[in-house]
């Protein structure tokens, strides 16, 4: 759940690497994608006749499905979880799970799919990662069968998710991933400030990026020898200060940092533009340059490890740092309280910039599920789709996956409010509790629990997270990219251009920010991008967009 942007990029890279493999292994079995005549009448074993949204799914005869299970060491899979038992009781379906260590889940997934040995259900797949498997024909073009999934369609419709779901379409017009669906964008990262220091000097928490600058400036006047702001999330990531760039970029309406993509959708011109050459991106760089130039921001922010960064906060060498709600509570506040007398730290909603109160679009899809093509050969295919629809997309299924069984693991204290039964703890909520919702009961498991209505998603937030996300949920999402799937040979070409371009943007953004390259050379930098095929790269995507629009009008 943490830093989704970073993860999905890693997955994309892995996917790109896998394309070659998939192409090699999958040449044999490409033929069965074309026949649209889908006669499912013989595949209705165990299926319900009139399955509808909001209805409890119950197979008409006992079924069992195989599933790849991402084995999280914080709650290792156990056979005696209440989750399995209760699931079979409610739906008549038994899971046969293959546990795969979380550390190398993607590797094993690629291997199993490549070898034709994959279980029917392959969850925990991030949008984009499925592209690598498409050409092999091993994955079900699931978009053809969503009419079997009333809850899924209902949620897509009610929450206006169709454009986002459409962005998953591959060049054949189908999508192959059932994504996790969020009603609202969940924001994770923002700035945090030492509030006791601000209070001491009569400063208040900033709400816009201009105010952030003013606050840093005021702090600098009080502590001329210190950098008011130091930052982290710069190591083990392709984009230094990835979190900061991401939420600062958002305020300028541009994808930067962890969410950086070379293509940006320009809604006004109705075409794609190159992100690293946009005006907005330059403004982001200029803003950070100003902070570094006036010694308001620690220049080591872009190279130091997370520990080094936080050590400066602990040593009171800096007073602001990027945060997410977990880090704020579990790391910053916890350690500051122990080591610095009277220290308090707060996270602010992402400051507002020139783009107004917006959040990046497209972030409402989470990791989701691929279904093996083999599922279609089974006589219980319809039941499988109905079951998937119930467990992952119905309100009842999502509540069951997250909180468990009413009066056994939780009680309802109000609409959308859940309370764990005494003696049950969730992620340390009650250190003395003998049982743990995840470890001992198998609920709140990342394999089954993601997305959902805002009420359900926010029901597990800590007070800090709730405050932060509620503020962010009121903002307007920016439009999502329209679908522009590339053909296989275009994809290959685009991948060759993509990485050098991205690297050039990353390196130069950093040099501009740190003042190693003067901002007056911006035009030269754009010229260099052109020399690296920026225009042809964007043309490729624009052509794909036009083509898709025409073919699927």
């Amino acid at each position, binding site marked *: 759940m943490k830093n989704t942007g970073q993860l999905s990029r890693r997955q994309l890279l892995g996917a790109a690497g896998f394309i070659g493999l998939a192409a090699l292994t999958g040449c044999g079995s490409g033929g069965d994608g074309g026949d649209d005549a889908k006669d499912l009448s013989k595949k209705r074993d165990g299926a319900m006749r009139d399955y509808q949204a909001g209805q409890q799914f119950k197979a008409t005869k006992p079924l069992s499905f195989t599933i790849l299970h991402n084995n999280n060491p914080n709650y290792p899979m156990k056979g005696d979880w209440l989750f399995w038992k209760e699931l079979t009781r409610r739906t008549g379906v038994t899971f046969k799970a293959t546990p795969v260590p979380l*550390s190398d889940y993607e590797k*094993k997934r690629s291997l199993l799919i490549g*070898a034709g040995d994959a279980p029917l259900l392959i969850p925990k797949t991030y949008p984009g990662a499925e592209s690598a498997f498409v050409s092999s024909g091993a994955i079900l073009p699931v978009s053809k069968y969503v009419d079997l999934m009333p809850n899924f369609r209902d949620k897509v419709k009610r929450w206006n998710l169709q454009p986002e779901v459409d962005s998953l379409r591959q060049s054949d017009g189908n999508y192959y991933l059932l994504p996790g669906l969020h009603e609202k964008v969940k924001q994770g990262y923002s700035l945090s400030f030492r509030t006791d220091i601000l209070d001491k000097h009569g400063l208040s928490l900033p709400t816009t990026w201009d105010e952030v600058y003013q606050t840093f400036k005021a702090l600098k006047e009080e502590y001329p020898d210190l950098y008011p702001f130091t930052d982290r999330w710069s190591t083990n990531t392709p984009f230094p200060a990835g979190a900061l760039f991401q939420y600062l970029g958002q305020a300028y309406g541009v994808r930067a940092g962890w969410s950086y993509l070379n293509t940006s959708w320009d809604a006004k011109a109705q075409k794609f533009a190159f992100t690293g050459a946009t005006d907005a991106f330059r403004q982001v760089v200029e803003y950070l340059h100003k902070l570094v130039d006036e010694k308001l921001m620690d220049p080591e922010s872009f190279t130091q490890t997370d520990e080094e960064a936080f*050590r400066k906060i602990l040593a009171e060498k800096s007073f602001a740092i990027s945060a997410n709600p977990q*880090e704020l509570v579990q790391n910053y506040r916890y350690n500051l309280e122990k080591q610095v007398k009277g220290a308090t730290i707060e996270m602010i909603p992402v400051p507002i910039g020139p783009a107004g109160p917006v959040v990046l679009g497209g972030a409402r899809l989470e990791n989701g599920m691929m279904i093996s093509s083999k599922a279609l050969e089974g006589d219980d295919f319809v039941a499988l789709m109905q079951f998937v629809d119930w467990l992952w997309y119905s309100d009842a299924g999502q509540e069951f996956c997250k909180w468990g069984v009413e009066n056994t693991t939780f009680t309802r204290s109000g609409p959308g409010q859940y309370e764990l039964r005494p003696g049950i703890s969730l992620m340390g909520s009650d250190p003395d509790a003998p049982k743990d919702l995840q470890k001992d009961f198998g609920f709140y498991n990342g394999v089954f629990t993601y997305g959902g209505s805002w009420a359900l998603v926010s029901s597990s937030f800590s007070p800090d997270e709730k405050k932060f996300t509620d503020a962010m949920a009121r903002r307007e999402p920016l439009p999502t990219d329209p679908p522009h799937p590339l053909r296989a040979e275009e994809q290959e070409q685009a991948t060759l251009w993509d990485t050098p371009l991205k690297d050039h943007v990353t390196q130069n953004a950093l040099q501009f920010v740190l003042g190693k390259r003067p901002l007056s050379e911006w035009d030269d930098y754009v010229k260099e991008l052109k020399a690296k095929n920026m225009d042809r790269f964007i043309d490729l995507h624009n052509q794909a967009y036009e083509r898709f629009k025409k073919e699927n009008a």
Partner: protein
Amino acid sequence: MVSVNRPTRGYRVFQGVNGVILTLVVLVTLYPFVNIIARSFSGEQHIRTGEVTLWPKGFNLTTYEIVFNDSMFWRNYGNTVFYTVVSTAVAMVLTTCYAYVLSKKNLKGRGTLVGIAVFTMFFTGGLIPNYVLITSLGLKNSVWAIALPNAISVFNLLVMKAFFESLPSELEEAAQIDGLSTYGILLRIVLPLSKAVVATMILFYAVSFWNSWFSAFLYMDRTELMPVTVYLRNLLAGATAGTGAGAATENLTQVNANIQAVTIVLTSLPILCLYPFVQRYFVSGVMLGAVKG
């Protein structure tokens, strides 16, 4: 080999300098080790602020307790021992036989046999074909999936072959005259004389099987079949991936702070204990084979 002459002045200087440099190298290589051990016993606060260097600060055993109390840890640890013992035994038998055969200069087709082995050093079938092969052979979820594909390390094979070649052939001829069969010669003459290289090979194989995780990760489908390396790898990934929302607890932050150090200590300890016993063979064995071969 010890020289009776008084060492020259220059040689003494060389020895001194050499000693100093080597001591420094030892210290540099030892420091991370000592540091890891110190961290594994230290309190979370001191680790986070970077105070721990050579000696534990804020002595704390929470992480050890948590790891030790997990039955899956012991189960996987047992698997590692089992896999290592079986795989090493299989590898030793096969490698010894292969190497002994290759060391016979009068063997017809010897070049081809060497070629077959060396070929695998440069070309492999690739991940997916290997996986399909192992699966079709029905080896999945058994120790053989780990032991058989890795049974012959070509490097070890060549070292052993060189060692066998260096043994005087007169010895074997004498044994033949006294009426020993081919197998008798191998078992009663050659192997007893090759303790050095055998011990070395056991160490090489045992260490590589002990540390390996990839084949088990590929071919094992159940958590209780995994070796401890996979268990710890996963634990590390979990600790760095964060644990989600909720209030902090003392234990959790402590575990996150030094789980890495604790796991490294726990996995390298046994194999570390093995080294001193085999080391004397280790030095003479490899040199013998390499110089004369």
